[in-house]
């Protein structure tokens, strides 16, 4: 079973996305802030990380930077899942090594799941 780490401070999204991913037979680890997210990433070495950008304690950009710095975590694909959508933010996240950048408000839940499956199978 593949493990997905979901770093997102909005508990309702944690719940909804978590439920679907469990149905799809993934194991979900969730973190409500950037610090815990980073710790969990290092401890659990998930197969995929879903990362929000506006996060308490350590924002998503910093988390991404730290993940890519560490040998242990730098190869884990990261899907940025956020509501920031300025070009500068997208560019910055991609430069830092994000695999895909999804603007939450523009995607159906099922489309997000499809993307996740795609990234995990590639």
């Amino acid at each position: 079973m593949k493990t997905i780490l979901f770093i997102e401070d909005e508990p309702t999204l944690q719940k909804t996305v978590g439920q679907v991913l469990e149905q799809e037979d993934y194991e979900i680890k969730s973190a409500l802030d950037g610090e815990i997210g980073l710790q969990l990433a290092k401890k659990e070495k998930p197969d995929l990380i879903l990362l929000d950008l506006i996060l308490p304690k350590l924002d998503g950009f910093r988390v991404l930077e730290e993940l890519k710095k560490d040998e242990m975590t730098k190869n884990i694909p990261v899907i940025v899942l956020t509501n920031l959508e300025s070009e500068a933010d997208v560019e910055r996240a991609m430069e830092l090594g994000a695999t895909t950048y999804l603007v939450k408000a523009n995607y159906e839940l099922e489309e997000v799941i499809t993307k996740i499956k795609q990234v995990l199978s590639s």
Partner: protein
Amino acid sequence: MSLREVYRQLNFFEQCRKNRIGLWQCPIFLFVLIGLIIIGTMLGIYFIANKYTQSPEMVALIILAVTAFLMVVGYSVVQGFNRLVEVNKMKSEFVSVASHQLRTPLTSLKWSLDMLLSGRLNDSWEYQLEQLKIAKENNQRMIDLVNDLLDVSRIEDNSLGLRPERVNLLDLVQNLISKYAFLAKASNVSLVLEAEEDLSADKWEIFVDPKRIKLAIDNLINNAVRYIHGGGMVKIRLKNNKNKSVRCEIEDNGVGVPKKEQKYIFQKFFRSQNIMKYQTEGTGLGLFIAKAVVEASGGKIGFQSQEGKGSTFWFELPIKSKT
């Protein structure tokens, strides 16, 4: 670019008004003014110098005076630019609040509905109910935010439209305290009321718009409870100032406001750095609205705070005299 477009670009009255800053603070206008002054002075100096070639002091004095004046205008230009920067900052803050704080509940709402429609939860009524609750909650969050934004625009064009009536402040505060009992307990905060012994109704009777004042106090209590990190104490104190006014203080022993950010606290969209670090939900509109409402009701509002120790927010409202 059409001629009208060129005209609009050059029409600095329009430009300045669009940015909501006065003519004397508006860089575009001031630059044109400087240009005109320089041209005028050049011509003037030429003629004067022609006429008074015998007294160079006179010419020097005039040039000095004009230079001094130009420096004053130059200073205003710089100030004007600062003001413009601030206006633009507010605009971009609005965009970021709108994009994050409005779209966060929108996304939760949308995905909950997606989930319900997907048929994934068909065999569990419990899960369906949960998603419906999420949808409803987030719908409410959006309504609150939109109401706040509407209030802000009403405040800005002075059309808040308060509907004052007799209100008992003590009742109102007690009401809010019971509303927050749950959140306080969940956040490990004890929330207590300390009123003077005499609780007779007429000591707390004020003449205000009940809905708006309630929202204002709600915001203050909400902040006090939320901006305590890991449990603490919120005390609400009511005082009667010689039957002229009532004073309400909301004291917390929370994270406080860093000294250098204190002057911004009532500005719209402002949120201090120490808060942003661990609390991403919020718009920075609560205090702006509270201040506008209290002041429009004839009252005053303020606070003291020390970073790491806590804050006391207070407001005073006049008592309705018996007539």
